[in-house]
């Protein structure tokens, strides 16, 4: 269907110009500056602009290697300390152990120049995988509840939304209390509910429970945000569709599955994308609750970026982390878009 002449041509430009200007100047430009920064050794407090160092920052961030060691003596396998090798042999200078495993009589250690970053990368993806279904599921449930037409639902909406409004500092103080092993209410409640079977868990001090604790707190804090977006989507589904279905004798479950879900398709998709992106950029919760610990178990990519960039003053390295993170996500998005287009192409 052909559009009138003035729907094409320059009109879109005028409509989009202010946004393009704003985004270009205040998002794209600083990002490009950050990109340039990654090729220097610029520090936050320093007498001169950083010197050009080429790919040194990327090398320090991403290099991996491996070390194969034979046992020091026969009998019980004992190996030389990995660091005594990496700190003395030229080929391994700058590397640290990331993970190790046995291969026959030999020990293989995977080395990386920045194992903390690689670990943070893993943590970040694990976090996203855990929090996105939880947060979006809860948000959908809440949105359905407060859209059911019950009286007082506007107050409930505000209640479910209140964590989003609260300052992160206060939220983390409260949750740190809740998660405390001996004094926290969560352990007390778990103990009471299980009649003492569940022993107190050191939520934030145990590497295996620290990330789940952050997941729970993040989902709790963010659910209200997604709930609001899903509500907007729900409001957009015509009531008449539901009325017609009910006249035809459809059950609530059928209504949900055949009217609500398809009507929310775009909104749910949007919520999933946005929650995933926010999850991958997780910073404040980790910074305030655990400081990346214990032993890097909760460190995320952006946490590492801020630690190195701002706290340590190494803004070039921090920018490198941000750029690599951004590149990874962009590649994922592009792959997803390509797959979607191909699917649409195949369907056509």
């Amino acid at each position, binding site marked *: 269907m052909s559009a009138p002449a003035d729907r094409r041509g320059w009109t879109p430009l005028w409509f989009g110009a202010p946004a393009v200007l704003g985004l270009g100047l205040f998002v794209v430009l600083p990002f490009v500056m950050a990109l340039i920064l990654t090729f220097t050794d610029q520090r936050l*407090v320093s007498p001169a602009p950083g010197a050009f160092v080429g790919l040194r920052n990327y090398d320090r961030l991403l290099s991996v290697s491996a070390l194969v060691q034979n046992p020091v003596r026969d009998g019980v396998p004992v190996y030389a300390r990995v660091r005594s090798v990496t700190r003395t042999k030229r080929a391994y200078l700058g590397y640290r152990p990331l993970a190790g495993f046995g291969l026959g009589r030999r020990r293989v250690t995977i080395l990386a120049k920045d194992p903390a970053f690689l670990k943070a990368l893993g943590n970040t993806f694990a976090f996203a995988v855990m929090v996105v279904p939880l947060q979006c599921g809860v948000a959908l449930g809440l949105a359905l509840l407060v859209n059911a037409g019950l009286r007082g639902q506007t107050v409930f909406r505000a209640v479910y939304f209140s964590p989003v409004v609260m300052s992160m500092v206060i939220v983390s103080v409260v949750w740190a209390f809740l998660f405390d092993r001996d004094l926290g209410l969560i352990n007390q409640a778990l103990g009471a509910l299980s009649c003492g079977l569940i022993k107190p868990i050191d939520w934030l001090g145990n590497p295996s429970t620290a990330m789940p604790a952050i997941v729970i707190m993040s989902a709790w804090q963010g659910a209200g945000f997604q709930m609001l977006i899903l509500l907007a989507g729900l409001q957009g589904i015509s009531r008449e569709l539901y009325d017609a279905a009910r006249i035809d004798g459809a059950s609530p479950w059928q209504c949900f599955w055949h009217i609500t879900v398809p009507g929310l398709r775009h909104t749910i998709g949007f919520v999933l994308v946005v929650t995933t992106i926010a999850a991958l950029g997780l910073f404040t919760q980790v910074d305030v609750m655990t400081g990346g610990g214990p*032993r890097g178990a909760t460190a995320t990519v952006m946490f590492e970026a801020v630690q190195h960039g701002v706290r*340590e003053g*190494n803004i070039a390295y921090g920018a490198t982390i941000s750029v690599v993170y951004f590149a990874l996500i962009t590649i994922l998005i592009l792959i997803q878009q390509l797959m979607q287009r191909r699917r649409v192409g195949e369907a056509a």
Partner: protein
Amino acid sequence: MRAQYHTVALLLCSGLLAACHAAFVPNDRADLILWKNQAGLDEEAETTSLINRFNASQAKWRVVAQSLPQGGYDQSVVAASLAGRMPCVLAVDSPMVASYAWAGHLRPLDGYVPARTLARVSPATIGAFAGKVYAVGQFDAALALYARRSVLARMHARIPTLDRPWTQAEFQALLERLKASGGYRYPLDLETRDDKASWWTYAFSPMLESFGGDVIDRRTMTSAEGALNGAAAQRFGAWFQGLFAKGLADRQEPDDNAFVDGRAAIVYTGDWWADAYRTSAGNDLLILPPPDFGTGVVIGGGSWQWAISTSCAHPDGAGAFITFMLQDRQIADMSDATGDVPVTEGAAAASRDFGPHGKSRIFYDLMRRFARPRPATPAFPAIATAFTTAMRDIMDGKDVHDALDDATDDIDGTIADHHGYATAGGR
């Protein structure tokens, strides 16, 4: 129509008034912009009255203060220097003095603050780099152990004094007895709840030094090898790890109140808690020196200090302000208002609580005798981050030698990246 006339008349009058005002207000004072960190409302109030007193005491300059949150302080300074809007006088956290000086943001105090004034001040509160003095503090802080007399008596423990502090063995034995007695969740509170690098470095690098190690080899200031990962440091790391492994200290207390609540018997923290503990424990409170782990008691030295920026148009005014601030009377007033430790003997004598028989005298003595400043090097942010990461990992069970090696490598790498900061040194 009338409305228009009214508006025009109003505008004309206000214009005239503004012009007259500008003409009559005497504006012969030079404005000195001052930046300080926010450190609590008491200190704010006292600094404001200090500034008012200075402004009233002379007619050449007027100090105008701005108070910034500590969280973004460094970045605000950098932003201001980029924009050419640096303040004239600025407060600098003592370990950052070397960084700012190296970056060219500060000018030496030489010539603006008399040498004899600086000589009166406790050495730990002078911020020097590469042989020049760039900053001086009006007050300092002191770390101590707090305990209850009744508890020590029950444990048959000796009460340590400044001349005879606890040895490592005594301290360890006491903690283990306290734990065994069953009355304490974690007998020792090390305030590890605060995970900021500034606290960990300030609180625990002195212990490292008491063991015989250091965060950097201060003779060369270019490497931490041997100091941070040598035998002494490894002994420190092992002892530190043992505290948590044996349940003598909690990796993260839920709040700051362990000592007040009686969940901890001994707490290692600074003078800023003294009032709260006095209220809670009354006469039962003991303020004790930290243990001597081998080479003598060491506590952290240097709090926020005052410096003059390079771009200040009136450095003599800034110098006059700093000199004014270092008068014994001004220091004493600040100490009385905030409880911070005064930096000169005269001020201590003039103050309410730090005089020879004052209730907080011990903090002054601790500071004078045992305070050692953190190393004056632009690499300090890297040192602090590396040390804190290593200690937190050690607390959580990482191999001590590995953790210390990693920290050493990080520090050495940073220094090497900057070719030793050209001017190595600054004792």
